[in-house]
């Protein structure tokens, strides 16, 4: 049996189950405890689990994330919230030098089973410094894992996998998805965990592959409906879910099937996950491509504030449809 939960509730359920499963799991972050989380993901967990397991921190991201990394080397399993992933910028050294490298530099003697989670998205009027999408940036560092769930079920299944993983996992949510609803398996039916590294075919199609992650999956699904209804184009939508490890096989499979690809990626167009996916496709499925791989990314500027226009900067169904129609 499954229930309808919001993305937020599904995440919270995942966190709650992992807090119950393993007494070394501890949630930390700014306002995660007494305030119930800036976006209410951790609502009720402090009341249920108490001061030791759910910890409010000062506004010191380098300090508390570094603290989590240090504690993880001793076997604690911190799950740390960045109120916005954009605040990675003040903790970057801890995230990329310590978490990503400590295992390697110690020749495998240390490991770092942390999760850092929080929202990473544009579209909520919070402007350039609060709207970074760093999944491509972090996936570039070997030693790190990155995932970006698009649906409530994926959010729950992946957060549980992330917490159990013995490597650092950077988990990117989305303020615009927190309220979205979807089916999530009932805990009574068993432990629901989705492995990292497994893409999910969210819509089957034959004519073109839309490959996306995060909220772009939702936008791609909406675009696919328009393409079907208004243009008779049957689009397949592949949700990467996990950026590193990456399900390269699933990517190549959909390309071989449709021979046409549009990558949808809310990042800015220089680089990002989509440039990497394009590289992989052209390298490993060169002969399967009937047309160049195209992308729909955010328009190449810092995130604009204006609520009148900000949605136009992001990949949206209209822009995706137009791009598909432009494929020769």
């Amino acid at each position, binding site marked *: 049996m499954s229930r309808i939960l919001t993305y937020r509730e599904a995440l919270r359920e995942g966190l709650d189950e992992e807090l119950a499963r393993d007494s070394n799991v501890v949630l930390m972050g700014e306002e995660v405890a007494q305030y119930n989380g800036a976006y209410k993901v951790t609502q009720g967990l402090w009341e249920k689990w108490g001061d030791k397991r759910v910890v409010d921190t000062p506004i010191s991201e380098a300090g508390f994330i570094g603290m989590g990394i240090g504690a993880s080397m001793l076997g604690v399993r911190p799950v740390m919230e960045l109120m916005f992933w954009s605040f990675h910028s003040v903790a970057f050294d801890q995230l990329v030098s310590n978490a990503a490298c400590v295992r390697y530099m110690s020749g495998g003697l240390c490991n770092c089973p942390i999760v850092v989670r929080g929202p990473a998205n544009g579209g909520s009027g919070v402007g350039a410094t609060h709207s970074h999408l760093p999944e491509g940036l972090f996936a570039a560092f070997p030693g790190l894992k990155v995932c970006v769930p698009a649906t409530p079920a994926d959010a729950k299944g992946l957060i549980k996998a992330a917490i159990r993983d013995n490597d650092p996992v950077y988990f990117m949510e989305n303020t615009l998805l927190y309220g979205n609803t979807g089916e999530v398996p009932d805990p009574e039916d068993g432990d629901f965990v989705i492995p990292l590294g497994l893409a999910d075919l969210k819509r089957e199609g034959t004519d073109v592959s839309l490959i996306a992650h995060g909220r772009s999956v939702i936008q791609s699904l909406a675009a696919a409906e328009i393409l079907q209804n208004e243009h008779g184009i049957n689009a397949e939508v592949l949700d990467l879910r996990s950026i590193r490890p990456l399900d390269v096989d699933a990517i190549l499979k959909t390309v071989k099937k449709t021979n046409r690809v549009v990558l949808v990626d809310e990042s800015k167009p220089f680089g990002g996950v989509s440039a990497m996916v394009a590289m992989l496709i052209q390298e490993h499925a060169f002969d399967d491509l009937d047309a160049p791989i195209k992308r729909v*990314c955010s328009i190449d500027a810092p995130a604009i504030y204006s609520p009148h226009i900000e949605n136009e900067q992001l990949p949206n169904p209209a822009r995706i449809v137009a791009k598909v129609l432009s494929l020769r």
Partner: protein
Amino acid sequence: MTSASSSKLDFISSPINQALTPERKVELYTQMVRIRKFEQSALKYYNAGKMGGFLHLYIGQEAVAVGTISLGGADDHFITAYRDHGHALAVGMGMNECMAEMFGKQTGCSKGKGGSMHFFAPDKNFWGGHGIVAGQTPLGLGLAYGLKYLGKEGCCLCYLGDGAVNQGAFHESLNIASLFGIPVVYVIENNGYSMGTSQERSSAFNGCLAQRAEAYAIEWDVVDGSDLYEVRAKTHIAMERARKQHKPTVLEIDTYRYYGHSVADANNKKYRTPEEIENYKQNHDPISVFQRRLLEEGVLTEDLVKSIGKAATNEAAASAKFADESPAPTIADISTDVYWETDHQTAASKVGHHFFND
């Protein structure tokens, strides 16, 4: 929250306050009222869905921005965090461009690109409006460094919150400020909370937050932020130290915000008691305190109070109308103001691809 004790000094006697003409006092009072009315209006339109993102209200803290900025001369500069409406109006920005910014319109001070957290007016020596907690503290250091480098006798006032003191960048800035002799005054606006976290839960301290300056051999002081005269008197000393001696200061100004951290802060009545809020409003409201004072001094009259209030209300309403009727940015506007060189169509901007849209 410390607050004025009954035996506190009366700072009207300080030279910088003695120098105030009645007109100037009314002006300062008016500025505080305008900030409050502006924000009350903003709140109304935020709730009506006219704005995106966050709205961090300054209401309750007005004497800090108005008192400190009133001391600014031609070469004094200002920079703050996201709770920036008060500072913006105090430096002389118009309600229109500020309101339009929040409405996300082309006529906004940042053309609708920055929003509530990112007001700027370099022509008025105001450098924002910054969203990353304490991220502005090295910038403030740099503005002051620039003044000294350029041989100007001025200083930079750099504002930050009580939660912001726990960011590393602030401490790096303090060390450099002291070591290099930089004319910067850090103003900690201590409103007792960083979001839902009381000062006690976020900061370890001995006595007060400003004391962190001591280990860097920086002068510091604690200021009652409900008393505009005290704010001016103590800030003036710090600014003179900066201008004349190239020495930094850390001021901790005790104040309070009436609303939540931002308007989206639904918990705002959970982490603090209604009594606490009410007490501040009744006894420490900077506008009421100054109003009473000026009535006593005979500088204000009840009539003047009313007409100032009314004018400010009307000005705010007009700014909302202006904002509402202004045009929104276009898709093309998204791509400007990224690079100076491309905006100015320089020779450099013609070489290579700067943008990667398809």
